[in-house]
């Protein structure tokens, strides 16, 4: 989606960033779960927080919500310092949170769960959301599938019409149709002025919905850029099936990385222009071509090195 900032290394120029991290650090003994993470999330943007599982995404989110205390550094959420418990509790009326692992009261029905949260922070958009996401409200949550739980979680996150939503792997467990619905819904919410913090380990999903992306690896922020730039820099995974075995020397170009040729199949990551690649390929007798998005790990390997220390 449209990256709205052109000078990507500078922070969006917005008076009050809904989320502002300043050297946020969390250590558990020798393990540094978050290492001096700093970035701002601007009002009205969908900010993708991308990283492999275990990179420290959930730690950042739990720090922002005051569930755990930072070892050093700080952060502000809707203007409240996360170290100020009272201020943070107050602004939570305007925050929606969808955790990666949904801990509902299992014996309650979906409706009772929503009633429970409604008593604490309102539910003016409940009915509207239930038309988009339809968990079986009269059944007990313990009987829910993963996808139904996730939908109940989505309704719970948005039903009090918060200014800021924090989503931790929001589409996990949803079928592709519901994922699309969720992505579309997020774009509409963003256009209506909501700020969305979207954590995910799925590159294609972040590419699709997010305006800007922060990439976290081993607890450290390794990149912060517009989603278009990320796409340009990430290259494509290409697999070519040739009619006959080919000499790798002759086939490879400077834009190809990690070329692996086995018999008549060649795999590589392509970092150049798509048109140039197609021009190059037509010189060979080709049976099949598969061009896809690279794995997140591949991007890390090629563009951020294996050492994520700053």
């Amino acid at each position: 989606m449209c990256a709205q900032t052109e000078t990507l290394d500078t922070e969006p120029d917005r008076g009050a960033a809904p989320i502002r991290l300043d050297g946020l650090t969390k250590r558990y003994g020798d393990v540094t779960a978050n290492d001096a993470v700093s970035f701002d999330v601007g009002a009205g943007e969908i900010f993708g927080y991308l990283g492999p599982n275990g990179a420290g995404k959930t730690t950042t989110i739990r720090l922002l919500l005051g569930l755990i205390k930072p070892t050093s550094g700080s952060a502000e959420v809707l203007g409240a310092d996360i170290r100020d418990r009272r201020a943070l509790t107050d602004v939570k009326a305007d925050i929606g949170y969808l955790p990666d692992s949904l801990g509902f009261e299992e014996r309650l029905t979906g409706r009772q769960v929503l009633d429970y949260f409604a008593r604490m922070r309102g539910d003016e958009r409940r009915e509207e959301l239930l038309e988009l996401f339809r968990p079986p409200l009269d059944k007990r949550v313990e009987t829910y599938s993963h996808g139904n739980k996730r939908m109940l979680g989505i309704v719970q996150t948005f039903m009090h019409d918060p200014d800021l939503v924090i989503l931790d792997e929001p589409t996990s467990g949803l079928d592709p149709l519901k994922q699309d619905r969720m992505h579309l819904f997020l774009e509409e919410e963003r256009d209506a002025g909501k700020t969305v913090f979207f954590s995910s380990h799925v590159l294609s999903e972040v590419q699709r919905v997010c305006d800007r992306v922060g990439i976290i690896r081993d607890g450290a922020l390794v990149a912060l850029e517009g989603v278009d730039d990320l796409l340009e820099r990430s290259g494509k995974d290409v697999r070519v099936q040739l009619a006959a075995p080919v000499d790798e020397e002759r086939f490879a170009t400077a834009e190809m990385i990690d070329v692996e040729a086995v018999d008549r199949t060649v795999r590589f990551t392509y970092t150049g222009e798509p048109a140039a690649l197609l021009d190059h390929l037509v010189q060979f007798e080709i049976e099949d071509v598969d061009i896809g998005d690279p794995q997140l790990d591949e991007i890390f390997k090629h563009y951020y090195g294996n050492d994520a220390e700053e």
Partner: protein
Amino acid sequence: MTAILRVESRKRVRGSVILVVVFALLSALYFSMFPGIQAEMDVIEEAFPAYMFDLFQIEELHTIEGFIAAEIYSFFWVLLVAIYFAYVGAGLISSDVRSRKMDLTLSNPVSRESVVLQKVAALWVPLIALNVGVPIIVYVGALVIGESFDPVALAMVHLLSIPYLLVCAGIGVVLSVVVDHPRTARAVALTLVAVLWLVDGVSRVDPDYERIGALTPSRYYDQTAILVHEEYALGDAGILLAAFLALLAVAVFVFTRRDI
């Protein structure tokens, strides 16, 4: 802000009903036995060594008050109900943290103090259910076999047990915020309450341990004194209540400062 109190109260209903039913069955058993063995109680009282009676605070077994105090209150109430409260208390916070329910709960505009207090306040359900249901069962049971209870003493044996049960719950709640694993918290809580009860019993028998017994909650609740002698130790109940509030304060203090 009573959303948590409501949901927590609902969660306590089933256990409370089960406990009342258990007491109804136990009462039926003991009341049906009493007329038959009442005459032999003198023999029983002579047959067992005195320390057994001291240990369980048993007196006057041949009266209905002494019999019920011994059979229902000195064991089932003072130990098993206490263990139930310690067990429930120990699960209040730890199990929610473990299951990540606490993440969602605390994403609401509700303070951690309020979460602890509402969860503890939900113990009103078993407290009321047991302390209303069981005395009615005991009172009616006595009437059915042609005996009668002093209703004031019966009411007091329950009223004064509330601070005692709250202290046991408080022990559980403190463990619930300190120990990460709900299973461990529950196991430690119920073991601790059982050990404290035993220590109290032993300290009554052996004068050398008398002073250690002062640290056990059951020392401040004497069901036999209430039922048989109609002695109502309000000061002791006050001590228990203060201890409960202190435990609650410790739990809130720890919970508001820890990572979850």
